[in-house]
């Protein structure tokens, strides 16, 4: 990556650092929300453009990630509202494209990914916020406007459903050697 250059204003430097530090996790969160590589890239682009326009409202570095996740979540909801009347849903349980059709798509990880893709959004979203965003149940509740107890239930059920989807695989119970 190109180093930060002298003469760039602090706002731009902060933005560039934020993009480089958080774009990967944000893309992954977008992917698990949208289940589409192309949509995920669009969402990340749009999220960072919005973040740039509202960068002054970001008070501290620690809150950057949850802040971006919240923006992206809203963007996704907006996109969903726009697309709802334009698209025909073929199969809610299958991803639009297959980002893992590469050599690394093999073994346990691929099966777990398939299982995660099959999770309903109400479980997949908080799970991704927790795993990728590093948020606690309370933080997720605050960001999504839900009761903390409801979020904890969703997180618990997300994992239970994953185990169910993974069937009797040893990995589902953490039974690997």
């Amino acid at each position, binding site marked *: *990556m190109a180093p930060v250059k002298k003469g760039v204003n602090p706002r731009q430097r902060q*933005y*560039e650092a934020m*993009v*480089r530090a958080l*774009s*990967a996790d944000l*893309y*992954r969160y977008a*992917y*698990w929300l949208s289940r589409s*590589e192309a949509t995920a*890239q669009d969402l*990340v*682009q749009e999220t*960072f*453009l919005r973040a*740039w326009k509202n960068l002054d409202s970001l008070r501290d570095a620690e809150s950057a990630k949850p802040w971006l996740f919240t923006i992206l979540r809203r963007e996704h909801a907006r996109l969903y509202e726009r697309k709802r009347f334009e698209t025909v849903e073929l199969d809610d349980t299958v991803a639009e494209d297959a*980002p*893992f059709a*590469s050599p*690394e798509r093999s073994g*346990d*990880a*691929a099966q*777990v*990914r398939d299982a*995660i893709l099959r999770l309903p959004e109400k479980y997949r979203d908080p*799970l*991704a916020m*927790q*795993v*990728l965003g590093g948020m*606690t*149940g309370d933080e997720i509740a605050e960001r999504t406007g839900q009761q903390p107890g409801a979020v*904890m*239930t969703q*997180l*618990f059920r997300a*994992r*239970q459903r*994953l*185990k169910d989807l993974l069937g009797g695989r040893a*990995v*589902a*119970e*953490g*039974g*690997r050697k």
Partner: protein
Amino acid sequence: MNCLDFRRRIGAEPRSRDPELLAHRDACRDGCGAFWQRAQRFEDDIEAAMAVPVPDGLADRILLAQATSERRSQVVRRRGWLAMAASLIIAFMGAGMYWRHADLNSLPALAVAHMPGELDALDLTRPMTDAQVDAGFEGRGARLKGPAPAGVTYVHDCWVGPYRAVHLVTRMNDEPVVALYMPGTMTAGDSDFHRDGWDGREMALSGGTLVVLAQGASRRTMDAVARGWRDAIEGQQAPSVGRI
């Protein structure tokens, strides 16, 4: 904390470092430690699965989009400023042209513009009769309500711009003072002016407007002539304002 609570919490937040959870894990003899270990391994699998490959150059594309957007915004902002500046210039020019047009069509401007064709009248010294003065006013549909000031040396029907006027010259203390009375032409109020070498006063009378002009005459003489014509036109007792 009992085992059920522990397993529910771990089932929702396997990475929690809550001391109460960790204490139960370490103290429990009913398999919660093993449960915690399995939960950690399952969480490792979830984390690994969720770490999908990120497209090459994603961060650079994001920065490029931001730079492009910012540049476009700057261009739009600059165009906005230019448009605003152009609007202001046009507004100032319009206001200037309007002011100049209004100024050129003001009574003082029209009165002064009328004078070059009448300069010879300033040299006349023979007094006019009251009948000649009255006739001059009647020619413009006006009638004097009081005696005309003494020392009137010139009476003529004129056009001051678009306005019909009685052009008068009154000589007082050997100083000619011009009075232009425009019956039916109304102005807002009295004002003094200096324009193109002429000292003047615009006076609103009940039936029209009187403009008094002089070149180099004393203020006292102008005041006396103006007062004399106002009294004559509006009907008050006119004092004797001078003599030839």
